[in-house]
């Protein structure tokens, strides 16, 4: 098997596992559908925006939960944003944590919120690492002169 085919196989297997394990959902496929010759880096651009935005939101959440008098409306507003952007790029596990997080905000449950923040952070780091690995694989394929397989 030549190098390109091997890389392409790896790419397909890796992508499939991300969907199977629930890290990504169909919305990520939607993003890929939007990428074309006029916008060949669209997915990377949007995902990079998501990374930057997420890190800001996670910091804001940590700060908001450290206040003496916690403004749960503010916390909820941040979580709402995070839920929105993670949903928009298909980061399913992050989104799911945000759903639970919002419930704790409604209940003004500090312990629940602190726990969810930690989970959100963990899931964010996981998906960031996995997407970076995926983009890396794409680059390797392209540099070897191959084309990136279209996933369904």
């Amino acid at each position: 098997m030549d190098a390109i085919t091997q890389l392409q196989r790896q790419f397909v297997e890796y992508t499939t596992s991300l969907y199977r394990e629930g890290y990504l959902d169909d919305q990520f496929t939607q993003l890929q559908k939007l990428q074309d010759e006029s916008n060949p880096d669209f997915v990377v651009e949007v995902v990079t925006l998501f990374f930057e935005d997420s890190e800001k939101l996670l910091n804001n959440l940590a700060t908001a939960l450290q206040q003496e008098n916690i403004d749960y409306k503010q916390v909820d507003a941040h979580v709402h944003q995070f839920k929105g952007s993670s949903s928009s790029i298909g980061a399913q596990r992050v989104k799911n944590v945000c759903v639970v997080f919002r419930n704790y905000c409604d209940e003004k449950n500090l312990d629940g919120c602190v726990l969810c923040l930690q989970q959100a952070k963990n899931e964010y780091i996981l998906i960031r690492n996995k997407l970076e690995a995926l983009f890396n694989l794409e680059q390797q394929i392209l540099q070897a002169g191959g084309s990136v397989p279209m996933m369904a």
Partner: protein
Amino acid sequence: MACNYEEDVPHVLAVDDNLIDRKLVEKLLKSSSCRVTTAENGMRALEYLGLKETHQQNNGSKVNMIITDYCMPGMTGYELLQKIKESSVLKEVPVIIMSSENIPTRVNECLEMGAHKFMLKPLKLSDVKKLRHQLTNVEVEKR
């Protein structure tokens, strides 16, 4: 020629406070052959449409559709919809409300206020293409 083609391409104003969603909706619309202007909140949208100024920098007549998020700080999508429907210049422009939450009372209140459609986020390319197709039909019906 090129200028005639430009006039046939619908011009959409997309309003969303979330940066990622803004970029997404812009691409979805461009991929559906629309010209897109984005605004990050209701105020900016109203300014662009010329509803805020008395001296008209009126872009309202150049917009064929407005698509807005529901949950925005300051002015909600519903409030923006209201202002648009109150304007004699803009009330005929179809307004689409997007929301990540499928709350029946929310959907109803938007439709009753005159929203053309209520769409659930995240939007799919097929949803937007269908919308674009409907938009052409709406315009044809008016003639």
